[in-house]
C-alpha cells in the first residue's frame, strides 16, 4: 500500500530511507483484522450474493485450493518472470544512460528531456502498438515494462551519481580507480540509496503495468499470469477465485516491499548512508 503513495511522488524522495519497525505493530494487525471482520459481517448480515462479494472464508478456501493445485504459483511465476525480464533490461539500460549522463553534460540534458517527455505516458498505453511492433508473445509485454521502469530508474540513478561527494570521488582517483572499477567501487555503492529508491518506484510502475497488460491482453504465448487469472475466473463466475488472485497480488507487492526494506537495512542503513 505504501507503493501507491510512493509511485505518485517519484524523484522527490531521492535520498530518504524509511526507518521501519521490524515488530508487527498492534495497530497494523488490528486494522487488518477490522477489515476482515467488517467484510465478513457485511457479507453475512446483508446476505450478499457471493457472486458479487464472496465471504472471507470462501476466498480463503479458494486461495488454498488454487495454491495447492499449483495454479496460483504458475500464474504468479509467469507474471514475475516477465516483470523480472523487463526490470532487468530496464535496469541495465538505465545504468548505461545514467552513467553516460554523469560523464557528459549533453547526455545528461538528453536524459532529462527524454525522461520528462516519456515518463508521463502510462506505458500500458503503448501495448497496442507494441503488439504490432513485436508481434504476439512475451516481447511486447517486456517492452512496455522496460518503458515503465527505465525513466524513473535512470533519473534516480543519475541523481544518485551526481550526489556522490567530491571527496569520495577524489579518494577513488587517489587509489587509482578508473572506468568501470571506479563505477563499481565508488559510484554504485555511493548511489545505492537512490538506486534503491528508483528500484522501489520502478517496481511499483512495472507491477501495475504488467497486471493491467494481462487484464487487457490476456494470456501471452499460451501462458496466463495473475491478471489473466482474474479475467478467466470472472468469466467462470468464480468471484472467490478472483478475490484470491487479488490477494495474491497484494501479498506479492508486500513481499517485495519487505525484501527491499531488508536490503536497505543490510546496506545503506548499516553504512550510515540513510541519514541525510
Amino acid at each position, binding site marked *: 500500500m505504501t507503493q501507491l503513495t510512493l509511485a505518485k511522488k517519484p524523484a522527490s524522495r531521492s535520498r530518504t530511507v524509511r526507518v521501519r519497525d521490524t515488530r508487527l505493530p498492534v495497530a497494523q494487525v488490528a486494522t487488518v483484522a477490522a477489515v476482515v471482520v467488517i467484510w465478513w459481517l457485511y457479507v453475512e448480515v446483508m446476505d450478499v450474493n457471493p457472486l458479487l462479494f464472496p465471504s472471507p472464508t470462501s476466498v480463503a478456501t479458494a486461495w488454498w485450493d488454487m495454491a495447492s493445485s499449483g495454479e496460483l504459483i504458475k500464474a504468479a511465476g509467469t507474471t514475475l518472470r516477465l516483470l523480472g525480464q523487463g526490470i532487468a533490461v530496464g535496469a541495465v539500460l538505465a545504468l548505461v544512460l545514467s552513467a553516460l549522463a554523469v560523464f557528459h553534460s549533453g547526455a545528461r540534458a538528453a536524459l532529462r528531456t527524454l525522461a520528462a517527455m516519456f515518463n508521463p505516458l502510462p506505458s500500458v498505453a503503448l501495448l497496442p502498438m507494441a503488439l504490432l511492433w513485436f508481434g504476439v508473445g512475451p516481447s511486447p509485454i517486456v517492452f512496455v515494462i522496460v518503458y515503465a521502469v527505465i525513466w524513473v530508474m535512470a533519473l534516480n540513478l543519475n541523481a544518485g551519481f551526481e550526489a556522490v*561527494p567530491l*571527496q*569520495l570521488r*577524489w*579518494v577513488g*582517483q*587517489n*587509489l*587509482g*580507480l578508473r572506468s568501470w572499477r571506479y563505477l563499481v*567501487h*565508488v559510484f554504485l*555503492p*555511493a548511489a*545505492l540509496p537512490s538506486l534503491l529508491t528508483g528500484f522501489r518506484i520502478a517496481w511499483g510502475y512495472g507491477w501495475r503495468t504488467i497486471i493491467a497488460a494481462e487484464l487487457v491482453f490476456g494470456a501471452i504465448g499460451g501462458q496466463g499470469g495473475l491478471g489473466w487469472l482474474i479475467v478467466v475466473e470472472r468469466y467462470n463466475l468464480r468471484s472467490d477465485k478472483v478475490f484470491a488472485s487479488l490477494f495474491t497480488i497484494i501479498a506479492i507487492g508486500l513481499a517485495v516491499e519487505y525484501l527491499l526494506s531488508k536490503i536497505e537495512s543490510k*546496506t545503506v542503513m*548499516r*553504512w*550510515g*548512508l540513510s541519514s541525510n
Partner: protein
Amino acid sequence: MLSYASAESGTADKQSPPEVLKIVGCTIDFKTDKGLFRAVEDVNFSMYEGEKIMLLGPSGCGKSTLLKAIGGFLPLAEGHIELYGKPIGRPGPDRVLVFQDHNQLLPWRTVRGNIAFAARQVLGCSKHEALAKADKYLDITGLADFGGFFPHTLSGGMKQRAAIARAFVVDPKVLLMDEPFGALDAQTRQKLQLELNRLWQRTRTSLIFVTHSIDEAVRLGHRIVVMARDPGRILKVIDNRTLQEEFLADIEAEPTEAAELRRELRALLHEARGETVGG
C-alpha cells in the same frame, strides 16, 4: 635512525637526499562570476625525500589549493610540478591526499576493509596479504579493536586515524595532508600529531601538511613554508630541522627555541594577513 639533518652529514656522506617534488613558478587561477581569481601566485620550492613540509598560512592564502594542485586535482595556470623529475599527471596513488573532512572513508566498507581495499587496489597484493597489512596499520594507529566497525559509527579522531592508515598503507611517494586534524579537539589533535610522527619514523614518507596552527607547524615540520594571502604566495621558508629532532623524540618537549620560533611565526602571520605588526 637519525635524519639527514644529523651531524654526520657534514663529514663523509655529503650526499643530500634526492629531490622528490619540485614546484616551479606555480600559479593557480579560479574562474568565478567576477572573472579570474588568482588563488596562488608564483610558488617555488623543492621537497627532499623523507621531509615533512608544513604549509602554514591564514585562511585564503591558497595553501590547500596548492596541495590539491600537487595532488593533480586542480590545473595550473602557469608553472609546473615535477615528481622525481617527471611532470605530475592526473591524480594517483603516488600522491595520496588526506582531507580535513572526516567523511573520507568509503562508508560501505569497514575500517579494516577500507585499508585492505586500498592495499589491494594500489599494491596489487592478495586478499590475505592486504588484510594482514590492514591489521598491521590498525595496530599501529590503535584501531585494532575497531577494524570491523563501519566508518559512520566512529568518532572523528578514529576516522582520521583510519584515513591516515589507509594513506600510509599504499606507500605513496608524497603524502598530502590537508589540515587532517583541523576539526578535532585539542587533546585528540595532540595525540594524532604524536601518532603521525611515530608512523613517519617507521616509513619516512615525504609529506606535505597544510595547517593554520603555528603550534602544529612547529611540532611536526622539518621545514615550515609560510604563505601570505591576496594573492597566495610564499612569504618565508623556515628551517626547523633541529627542533624537529627534539619533537620526534618527545612531542611534548618545550625547548626555548620553540617559543622563539612561535613568536616569529606569529609576526609572520600578521604580515601574511596584510596587517602591520604593531609594537
